[in-house]
């Protein structure tokens, strides 16, 4: 380890860390916004579920590098390319959880809401979705953590992130640089994960603290 390299390249390291966080978090959030209606539809109508789950499984199996490449003709070697690809993956992990979370609401709770005069929309927004939060956030956590780690592959098509430290470190045979990138990607992913756990606790004060 050459510790002095870290301090003399601090600016660049922070810049790449920010870029990695930006790409990973933005795509997971866009994925969440699209997954909510998709998951709600899949939870409501039984026949929608099998095709949605199959499509989601197939998309999720596409290797990230191949997806980046497939998007090059339309989106070029840009941030947008990586964001679109990572959004597709986050859809795949969040949508099934939205559907599962809503379906797991106990029938008695649903009936109680109806008995209190809640219409379907009000029941969905104020009863079913809040109860589904832990499952939805579990999906979001997977999306954010894997998104941040996959962002580094974008460097192979020239989209800058902490992946730069891997490629540059290999070209210069410089382990320090690679170690820094590796540790920062993992730490960044786990920090985002902890933040989401915190958000879940804040949003579901009725749940057990376990």
């Amino acid at each position, binding site marked *: 380890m050459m510790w002095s390299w870290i301090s003399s390249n601090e600016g660049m390291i922070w810049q790449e860390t920010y870029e990695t966080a930006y790409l990973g978090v933005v795509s997971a959030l866009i994925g969440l916004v699209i997954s909510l209606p998709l998951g709600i539809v899949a939870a409501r109508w039984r026949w929608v579920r099998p095709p949605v789950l199959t499509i989601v*499984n*197939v998309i*999720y*199996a*596409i*290797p*990230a*590098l*191949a997806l980046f*490449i*497939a*998007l*090059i*003709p*339309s989106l070029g070697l840009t941030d947008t390319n990586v964001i679109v690809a990572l959004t597709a993956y986050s859809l795949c992990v969040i949508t099934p959880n939205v559907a599962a979370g809503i379906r797991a609401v106990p029938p008695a709770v649903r009936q109680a809401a109806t008995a209190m005069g809640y219409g379907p929309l009000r029941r969905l927004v104020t009863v079913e979705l809040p109860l589904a939060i832990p499952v939805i956030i579990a999906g979001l*956590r*997977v999306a954010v*953590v*894997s998104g*941040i*780690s*996959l962002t*580094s*592959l974008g*460097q*192979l*098509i020239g989209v800058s992130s*902490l*992946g730069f*430290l*891997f*490629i540059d*470190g*290999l070209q210069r*045979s*410089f*382990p320090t640089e*690679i*170690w820094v*990138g*590796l540790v920062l*990607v*993992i730490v960044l*992913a*786990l920090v985002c*994960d902890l933040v989401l756990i915190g958000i879940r606790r804040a949003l579901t004060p009725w749940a057990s603290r376990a």
Partner: protein
Amino acid sequence: MSFFSWAWDWITTSANWHGNGTGLDGSIPQQLLAHLGYSALPLLIAAAIAVPLGVFTGHTGRGAALIASLANVWRAIPTLGLLVLLVVLLGFSPLTWLLPLVALAIPPILVNTHEGVAGVDRDVRDAAKGAGMTAWQQVLHVEVPIALPLILVGLRTGAVFVVATATIAAYIGLGGLGRFIIDGLARNEYGPVAGGALLVVILAVLVLALFALISRLVVPAGLRKQERSE
């Protein structure tokens, strides 16, 4: 031109199927076979380690917390970074690509096997014990068959992951379909890049289909009926 027309043109160019016609390392069939080998070997080693281990931890309930955190950390590890680090530290050797591929394929298999076996109904375990089964019989004839759908999900996740990571390992010099992608990118030729990527996608989807078929064949009929009625 779209991705598919680039990829299709390159894949259907007959020169790319013979000898050195690609102008890159190896022909399509050679690299396809190499890719299969580079994916199958680590998957088999990982399965040989992770399935028995997951059955053990699931049956005994030991190490559950450790396995739960492993599931989480696993997704955070950037595979490119790990591969590159090993190459710089150790130089390119079978150890450099095989070790990380095996190590990274273990968590999904281990976690799912553990969850599957640990999730077997208390009553079912008691019934097996009450029927006079030995511990081995309980594990092999009751717990593993019931856990099979999840074990297969773990193996499928591991397989898809290994196919993708073997592609990335081309960046540190491994053969396989990733060669077309990495070399094509280095030369600014989109044809082999698109062709290689499409072949990798096809391979990954075939892996999914293969596992769908396997689970149809080996999952006990009673369990499948339960899934459908659920």
